[in-house]
């Protein structure tokens, strides 16, 4: 694979994809810096801080999927997207169920495990 001249179209695509990666990187950076910064340098109430951290994490995950893993709403990505959404649904059931069940059990029979 030696040098090859990119066609004009390809060159355009390339730069747009490069831009997309840069966007992704930039957004991810910001979304990392916010929670770390808040945790390190402010005396925010724990509750709000948790919410901010969680929010940033969720947005950053979406950013990664969109800009690094190229999961979009485009037609030819739909299979992957459906797969991911289905996984998220199953995960929500399993994780949500687990937390609900176990914390209820703690509450009812081993309160010292409640954090």
């Amino acid at each position, binding site marked *: 694979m030696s040098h090859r001249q990119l066609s004009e179209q390809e060159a355009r695509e390339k730069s747009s994809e490069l831009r997309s990666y840069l966007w992704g990187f930039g957004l991810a950076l910001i979304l990392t810096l916010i929670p770390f910064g808040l945790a390190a340098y402010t005396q925010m109430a724990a509750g709000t801080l948790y919410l901010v951290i969680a929010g940033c994490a969720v947005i950053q995950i979406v950013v990664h999927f969109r800009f690094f893993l190229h999961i979009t709403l485009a037609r030819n990505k739909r299979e992957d997207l459906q797969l991911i959404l289905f996984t998220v649904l199953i995960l929500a059931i399993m994780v949500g169920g687990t937390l609900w069940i176990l914390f209820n059990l703690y509450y*009812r*029979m*081993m309160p*010292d495990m409640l954090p």
Partner: protein
Amino acid sequence: MKGIIDSFVPLGRGGTILFVMALLSGCSHSLPGFMNPQGPIAEAQKHHFWFVVFVTLIVVLPVIIQTPIILWRYRYRGNAVYRPHWAMSRWLDIAMWGVPFVVVIVLAVVLWRETHQLDPYRPLDSDKQPLQVQVVGFDWKWLFIYPEQGIASMGQLVLPVDRPIAFQLTSATVLQSFFIPALGSQIDVMNRMVTKLHLQADNTGRFQGKNMQYNGSGFHRQRFMTQVVDDAQFDDFVAHARRDGYRLDRQRFNQLNEKSDATDFAGMLGIENYQHGDLMAFSPIPSRLFDAIAHHAPIDWTSLTTSPPQNRKIMDERMPPSNATPAPPDAEENTHDEADDNGGEKAT
């Protein structure tokens, strides 16, 4: 809603009778289990059982009845019409989704109500004060502690009739499940955790109790007898235990933690001819013994000495004096009486 379930009682009773007849044993033993309920919980469970059976049969019976009919009518050599492309009928589709759906709704409504009603954690409605009983599962034997009375028993769980019982349960070893079928629900018994159970007996008598969760080679021997007695007899039992019970000292407690069943333990106490269901009573017992076990906290052995020193065995003349067996040396490697792991910091 109660009405709905109750209307199934006659059916249920019919079912039970069939069931009894099918038993064909003709023996004098009364039927074990909740088909012969001895308390309100088991009674309700029996009704609910038959309720579910009969309601579900509405959608299940057609299958069992019609399949052979279809099979016969459309057999290869029969002469019913043959429609190889018929594969759709709106009305049948609606019925086959709709009827089960309605059935599930009915079942679900009753399920919701009964589940809350029969929640083992829910205290029973009664004008009497519930009796507190604390249950500790050891490997292959159960220890029943009566905290208010300051006594404990093994082999036999003595309960007063017509009075709610509030159980608190924990395990000194692995997961077990505590169960008296004739009285009602089973409940899991777990190390470092406390579960609760509320039962009541409506009749006096002797009912089997068991462990339902496999916990090793002695699992099937981990059973006990539930002796339901009237109030006077119960008071007798308490008095007797206080007077003649074995002292539950450190050494005996360490023996409890060994892998053995109630009979073996009776042997260690020096009881000969121990039969399943015989009573071994303990008094005095360390105060807050149950909490100490449940929370892996050290047991307060000093509390033993403050109780009156009545150290003789009980009731049965068969039993020889407890000091017939020499005491084995104190087993220090035992887990539960010493300040092990985290329990140390959490001394009660």
